[in-house]
């Protein structure tokens, strides 16, 4: 089967564009951020597309007002600015209101992790999982490919709650061949059934986990890979059932570790299930990344390259 490489945002926006023909309640709001696929949308639906300018706080506030009046709103911006410049607007106007009122706001942040590698630390987004996860009433979607992103369109319209969609900024190959392969209610998918060691990854890092699993199979090592694409809410017991078949769990994320990100999420699952599974957290240590270079280069500097991850896996296996 042909693997297609596409940007999540393009696929998602194109699908929204199609839905807007029949669904008059959809409103798309951008903080002066685009996509090739957005051009046709903003041309066709001038009355339901809005560019608020480079003003993320107002993006959230305007979107809240629209959603309070019943519109299905997509608020679109660069991920670190959407989540961190406008964090208190998201807290007060989105998370807090949604506990009392039905509001369907979909916060689309583009540029998860190191998507904007060479743009430096202002554009890196290593905190978003941590800070968005702490807000009650918010659904967090962290897709690994465009197939999932496309599948999520339907969910975003039907589930009338606030959501944060963290999209990678780069076009990525598909991981899923059919949308049916992923269950949005479960929130995760075991992409590879392995033994002893299981890697739990999200977003871009799922690609790396799959690649490593494929490399290791040539060396007769079969690791498990789980793609956690809905960070909140997901079926915790079901995830634990899968994890519990292994001896060790490695979390892999393009985010800070030991602060509430994917690693803490998995660690919380293990705690609540009184599990003795060993856990290794792989991500960024407590420092911003000023180094210049490709995403792979930055991974290497931060011990997230294939070799470093394989070494952690092998060390685990030797200790067992």
């Amino acid at each position, binding site marked *: 089967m042909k693997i297609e490489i596409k940007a999540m945002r393009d696929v998602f926006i194109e699908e929204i564009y199609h839905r807007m023909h029949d669904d008059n309640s959809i*409103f798309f709001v951008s903080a002066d951020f685009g996509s090739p696929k957005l051009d046709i949308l903003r041309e066709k639906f001038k*009355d*339901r597309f*809005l560019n*608020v*300018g480079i*003003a993320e*706080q*107002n993006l*959230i*506030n*305007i*979107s*809240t*007002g*629209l*959603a*309070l*009046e*019943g*519109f299905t709103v997509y608020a679109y911006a660069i991920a670190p600015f959407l989540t961190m410049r406008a964090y*208190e*607007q998201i807290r*007060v*106007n989105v998370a*807090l*209101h949604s506990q*009392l*009122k039905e509001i369907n706001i979909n916060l689309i942040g583009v540029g998860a992790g190191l998507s904007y590698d060479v743009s430096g630390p202002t554009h890196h987004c290593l905190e978003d999982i941590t800070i968005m996860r702490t807000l009650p009433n918010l659904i967090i979607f962290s897709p690994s490919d465009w197939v999932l992103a496309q599948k999520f369109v339907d969910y975003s319209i039907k589930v009338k709650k606030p959501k944060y969609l963290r999209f990678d900024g780069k076009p990525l190959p598909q991981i899923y061949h059919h949308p049916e392969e992923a269950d949005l209610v479960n929130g995760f998918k075991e992409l590879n059934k392995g033994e002893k060691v299981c890697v739990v990854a999200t977003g871009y890092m799922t690609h790396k986990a799959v690649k490593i699993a494929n490399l290791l199979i040539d060396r007769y090592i079969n690791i498990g890979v789980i793609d956690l694409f809905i960070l909140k809410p997901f079926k915790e017991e079901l995830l634990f059932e899968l994890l519990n078949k292994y001896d060790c769990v490695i979390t892999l994320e393009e985010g800070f570790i030991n602060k509430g990100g994917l690693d803490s999420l998995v660690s919380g699952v293990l705690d609540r299930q009184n599990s003795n599974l060993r856990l290794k957290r792989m991500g960024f240590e407590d420092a911003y990344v000023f180094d210049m270079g490709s995403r792979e280069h930055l991974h290497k500097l931060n011990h997230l390259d294939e070799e470093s991850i394989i070494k952690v896996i092998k060390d685990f296996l030797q200790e067992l």
Partner: protein
Amino acid sequence: MGPHSDLIEFLKQKALWVRKETLRIHKIAQETRVASSLSAVEIFVALYYGKIIKFDPANLKWENRDRFIISKGHGAISLYPILADFGFFEKQELCKVGKEGSFLGCIPDCIIPGFETTNGSLGHGLGVACGISLALKRKGVGEKVFVLLGDGELFEGAIWEAIMFAGEHKLDNLIAVVDNNKVCMLDYCKNVLDLEPLDEKFRIFKWKVEIVNGHDISQLYNALMALRDDIDSKPKVLIANTIKGKGVPSLETDSLSHTRNIKPEEIDLLIEGLK
């Protein structure tokens, strides 16, 4: 005495009653921001008892209601007696402000019938109101969106994002009222960052501006009516010049009035003295 002066007299009596009720609430809930609430009394009275805004306590989601966003949440204690009087909730709830089991907080939120949004954190209301205003236009709903802002709140950057937005998008169904009581928490606003000339700032951002004495109910009523019915394709702002702590002499001259409480034992005497 024509029908208009009868109405103004009625509004004055209501304002006196609301001011007294505000002090009574402060007596039982000392954490309420009484000075900030007292400056907004006549604004609330004109809007509700003057029938400037359309509302239905029996149908909070009525599509044809006017939306009223109280951005300066701190000052909204004065609205509690009004909402109770109109039947949004039972009057006895006013005795429970800030108490266990009550839905009436010392700073209000949208769990209270009659409040559209939650605004304990300043600077959010105008942007949300802009979104509502735009939504009503797109839905073809002709009703208005009112917003109460504090002048101290205008230091928040998000307010200016919204001011720019409203003017540019000609949100002519949006009517903001600035309770211009000149005092923020630690000082007079002008000693922090001088907001004047405030009217010019709004005009430059393409708003229609009117200025009134915010304690003169007749001026307030006439200006609000005129702005509500104005067909100019601009957002409108009424700068209501007020006195923080209005009605309590010790607060009226205090640059720290925002944080001052009035001792419960002094309140009955103050209420008696109000005219």
